[in-house]
């Protein structure tokens, strides 16, 4: 097969573990000591909300959530953020099927939200995700984690946490396979002419 394997199961799991550590390190939590007056800050629940972008971003977010749970129990909640209805190419593409959005009970207001996607490419999905977030509330900080950054951004968007930077050409395709949906953990790169 003309596919070239880029990441195998162990690589993916190492990348997610590293991303989880980086998420914890970068999250200093809200400055709860400096609330005005003498009222103690209300308990807002965990500060970190990990939101996966369907389909595979949700699975990656769940894995990151599980790792965070071991590193710092109770520090993070996991959810899913569907961006279908916010895409800028709806009228140009065949009808897309939306996936459910699920936000943890504490909401996203004043939280640190980490968006998780499998592949970062043009940045348009993330743009749609930022719009979708805006309709759900006002996070304190929004960060972006991606398993693969393949370059070719069309918008001024960058990832804060990257599993692997993978320089590609437009004609190549990246396939992310995950155990839960595809029976195996694998990232592979195809040349379009081989695949087509």
């Amino acid at each position: 097969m003309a596919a070239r394997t880029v990441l195998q199961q162990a690589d993916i799991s190492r990348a997610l573990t590293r991303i989880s550590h980086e998420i914890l390190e970068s999250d200093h939590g809200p400055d709860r000591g400096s609330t005005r007056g003498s009222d103690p800050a209300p308990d807002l629940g965990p500060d970190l909300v990990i939101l996966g972008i369907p389909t595979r971003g949700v699975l990656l977010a769940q894995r990151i959530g599980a790792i965070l749970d071991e590193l710092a129990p109770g520090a993070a909640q996991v959810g899913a953020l569907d961006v279908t209805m916010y895409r800028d190419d709806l009228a140009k593409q065949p009808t897309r099927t939306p996936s459910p959005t699920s936000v943890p009970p504490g909401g996203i207001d004043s939280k640190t939200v980490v968006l998780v996607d499998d592949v970062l490419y043009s940045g348009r999905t993330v743009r749609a995700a930022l719009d979708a977030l805006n309709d759900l509330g006002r996070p304190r900080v929004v960060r972006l984690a991606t398993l693969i950054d393949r370059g070719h951004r069309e918008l001024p968007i960058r990832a804060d946490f990257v599993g692997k930077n993978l320089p590609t050409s437009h004609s190549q395709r990246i396939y992310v396979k995950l155990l839960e949906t595809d029976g195996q953990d694998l990232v592979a790169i195809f040349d379009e002419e081989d695949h087509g």
Partner: protein
Amino acid sequence: MTRLRHLLSVRDLDRDAAVGILDLAEDMADVATRAVPKLPTLRGRTVANLFFEDSTRTRLSFEAAAKRLGADVITVSAKGSSVSKGESLKDTTQTIAAMGIDAVVLRHSASGAARVLADSGWIDAAVINAGDGTHEHPTQGLLDAYTMRKAVHGGASRGSDLEGLRVTIVGDILHSRVARSNVWLLQTLGARVHLVGPETLLPQGVEGWPVTRGTDLDAALDDKPDVVMMLRVQSERMLAAYFPNEREYARQWGLDDVRLARLAPDTMVMHPGPMNRGLEISSAAADSTRSLVLDQVTNGVSIRMAVLYLVLAGSGAGGDA
């Protein structure tokens, strides 16, 4: 998902397509619970509500649905427009189409009007049937199915149909497009439908429908149906006498307080509205905890958002990328 070119009849939907619309409506319902219950999805699209017959909930429901998806809405009612001067369906729709519209939501007193508009080539816009004569009211059928599915499966509704659900539809079947859309859609979704009403209000050809039928409401209630759907007595369509008088009708086929008390606690009572309280349904029944009448209205917006999305969001080619 497959894009819909038009929505004219529930008979154009197979099981998977129907379940897909109900699932999509679940996502749309979630939007209503958000801080900003509005989506930008259909921004720049224009939906024309073209109502040749009176309507409150369907017209407002489509209007709310279109606005929640970010579309613009033009509403034309027969009263107060050139329709009352005798302008034809063709001229009226071509006139509003010339102003630039993407979808027409059509209600008309003639059965088949939506099909005529869709097949005529008069306009390019998508056509959604919002009730055509005594033929069909597809979005009502869908919202009724959604309401039943939600009551049975709750939060775990996605992907499921109505297999085995027993639905009894009572009253003026003859004039009811709601009954027809329900009969065909419920059959597609695996439910079993029983029709009850005076012999005079059962339509010709009902023998060919996938239903059982009877004239005795009390006998039908003895069978403990899961859903009892009461239909409005459509006096405005009754040019002849179909039953002796209203008291007689209410006693024979009305869901009164005595019959309400006989229902099992989890029996769903539904009515498409507007209700004739005291005729086909008593106030106690309409306002009881078993009544899903207001859920039907709420769910109607979600269903119409789903239908507008499927008709307007994608490009010409169908299917997921």
